[in-house]
C-alpha cells in the first residue's frame, strides 16, 4: 500500500530506516544530516524499531562500530555528511574491502575549508574510489526509494558491498516535498532478513576477519572485490525492476530525459537535475534539441550504457558539483568524457563546475550552458574545456 505524504528529505530517509528496521545503527550528528540521527533516536526511544543504537563519540567510531556490527552478522547502518565522512575515511575503505553490506545515507555537504554547511558533492566524490556503491538521489522520493533498494543491492550474494545513498544537503534534506511511501509491511517484505554466510557470532564456524595479506594474496582479494562492483550493475537493475512492481516507480542506472533525438545535452546529478529538466522543457518549446542525462549510479560507473545513451549527441556538458583540483575538471567530467572516447564520433564534451558550498543554481545558469553548447555544436569549437558556473569573476 502506498500513501502520499509531505516529508523533508531527512524525514524520508529516517522513515526508510525505521521501515528497514536495522539491527544496529551507530551514528553521530553533523549538519545537514543531524536530523536523521535525531529522528532515528526517537524511533529507538519510542520502541518503534528493534535497533541497538550506538551513540558513538565520533564518525570514525560510527563507521568502526558499524563495521563491527555488520561483521558480527547484523544489518547495520550509519549516516553522515562532509567532515564526518572525511573523518571516517580509513574505515570507509575497510568496510568495502571487508565486503560488508552496510547502507549509509550521506547528505551531501561541502568539505572544509572554509567550513561550510551547504551542499556540494566534494564529500562523496572524494569517496568514489573507496569501493562503495554510490546512488545519488534527485529528491526525497528518490532518497527514500534508493535507501530501500540499497539494502537489497548491498546484501545480494553477487555483490556484498556497502552502499552510500546521497541527497543534496538542505536543498533536499530540509525541503518539504510530497512523496509516496510504502507501508511498513511492504518494506519489511521487500528487504527481507539478512542472512550472512560468514559472521563473527556464528558459534559453529568462528572466522577471522581483517587479516594481513601481503603481495601473495592481496591482489586476488582486490580483484574479487572489483568483480563484485562489476556484478552490482545487473543487481541494481534487477532490484529496480522488483521495486517497480511494488512501488510503481522506475529506476535505472541513470535517467535519460529527452535524449533520444537530442543534439545538445547535459549530464547532471542530484537536485540540479530538476532545474535541468525545467530548462530542457523550455528549450524544447523553442524548438531546440536539448536533452539531459541524470546519473543515479556513479559507482559502479555505467560507462557502456552512458556511451550508448549519448553517442549521437553533438555537444555535451558535464555538470560537476565538486572540484577535483586536477586542472582537468570535476570528478564526473573525466569518466564521462572517457566513456565517450570509444564512440569516436567527435562529440565535444565540456565541463561546468557549479554550486560549490551551496551556491544557487538557477535556470538561467543552465540556459547559459545550453547556449554555449549550441555554439559549440555550430562551430565545432569550444572556448574553455573547464568552466565555472555562477562564480563571481
Amino acid at each position, binding site marked *: 500500500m502506498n500513501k502520499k505524504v509531505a516529508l523533508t528529505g531527512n524525514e524520508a530517509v529516517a522513515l526508510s530506516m525505521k521501515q528497514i528496521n536495522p539491527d544496529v545503527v551507530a551514528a553521530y550528528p553533523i549538519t545537514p544530516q543531524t536530523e536523521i540521527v535525531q529522528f532515528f533516536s526517537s524511533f529507538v526511544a519510542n520502541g518503534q524499531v528493534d535497533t541497538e543504537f550506538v551513540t558513538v563519540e565520533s564518525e570514525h567510531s560510527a563507521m568502526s562500530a558499524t563495521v563491527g556490527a555488520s561483521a558480527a552478522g547484523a544489518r547495520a547502518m550509519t549516516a553522515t555528511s562532509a567532515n564526518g565522512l572525511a573523518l571516517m575515511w580509513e574505515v570507509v575503505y575497510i568496510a568495502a574491502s571487508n*565486503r560488508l553490506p552496510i547502507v549509509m545515507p550521506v547528505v551531501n555537504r561541502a568539505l572544509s575549508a572554509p567550513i561550510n554547511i551547504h551542499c556540494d558533492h566534494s564529500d562523496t566524490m572524494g569517496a568514489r574510489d573507496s569501493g562503495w556503491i554510490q546512488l545519488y538521489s534527485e529528491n526525497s522520493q528518490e532518497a527514500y526509494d534508493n535507501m530501500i533498494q540499497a539494502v537489497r543491492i548491498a546484501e545480494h550474494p553477487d555483490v556484498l558491498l556497502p552502499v552510500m545513498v546521497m541527497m543534496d544537503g538542505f536543498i533536499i534534506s530540509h525541503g518539504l516535498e510530497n512523496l509516496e511511501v510504502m507501508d511498513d509491511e511492504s518494506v519489511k517484505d521487500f528487504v527481507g532478513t539478512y542472512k550472512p554466510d*560468514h559472521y563473527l557470532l556464528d558459534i559453529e564456524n568462528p*572466522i577471522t*576477519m581483517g*587479516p594481513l595479506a601481503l603481495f601473495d594474496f592481496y591482489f586476488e*582479494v582486490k580483484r*574479487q572485490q572489483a*568483480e563484485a562492483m562489476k556484478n552490482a550493475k545487473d543487481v541494481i537493475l534487477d532490484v529496480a525492476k522488483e521495486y517497480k512492481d511494488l512501488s510503481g516507480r522506475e529506476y535505472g542506472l541513470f535517467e535519460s530525459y529527452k535524449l533520444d533525438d537530442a543534439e545538445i545535452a547535459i549530464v547532471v546529478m542530484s537536485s540540479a537535475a530538476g532545474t535541468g529538466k525545467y530548462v530542457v522543457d523550455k528549450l524544447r518549446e523553442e524548438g531546440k534539441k536539448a536533452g539531459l542525462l541524470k546519473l543515479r549510479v556513479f559507482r559502479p560507473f555505467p560507462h557502456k550504457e552512458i556511451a550508448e545513451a549519448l553517442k549521437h549527441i553533438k555537444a555535451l556538458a558535464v555538470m560537476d558539483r565538486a572540484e577535483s583540483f586536477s586542472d582537468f575538471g570535476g570528478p564526473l567530467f573525466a569518466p564521462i568524457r572517457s566513456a565517450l572516447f570509444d564512440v569516436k564520433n567527435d562529440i565535444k564534451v565540456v565541463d561546468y563546475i557549479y554550486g560549490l558550498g551551496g551556491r544557487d543554481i538557477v535556470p538561467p545558469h543552465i540556459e547559459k550552458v545550453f547556449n554555449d553548447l549550441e555554439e559549440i555544436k555550430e562551430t565545432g569549437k569550444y572556448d574553455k574545456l573547464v568552466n565555472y558556473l555562477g562564480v563571481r569573476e
Partner: protein
Amino acid sequence: MNKKHEKVIAPDVGWRNVTRAGIIPTAGNAEYYETGGWRTKKPVWIEDKCIHCLLCWRFCPDSSVIAEDGKFGRFDYEHCKGCGICVNVCPSDAIDFIDEGETSEGRNDGE
C-alpha cells in the same frame, strides 16, 4: 587430502577462489604453519626432575608446551621457537636448553 590442505588456502589459488575479503573461515589453522625452524636452541624435558607445576605451560608464548591431563605432556617442536622462557621459569631445572644441532631429531625448517 590431508588436514592441512583442507584448512589452508593454497598459495597458487586464483582470484575467484580466494576467500571473500580474505576472511579466514578455518579458525586456528596457524597450527599448520611451522615455526619450529626459527629455533637455534631447543628445550628438552627431563622427566625425572619434573614436578608438573605447569609453569612452563603457563609462560610459553607459543602454546608449545602441551599439557596432558593436567601434567607436562610434551614440547610441540613444530611450533616451539626456542625462546628459553620455559627453561628459566621451571622451578626444578627440569628443562635442558641445548643447541638445536645436538640431537638426532635435527632442525625443523618450517615452510
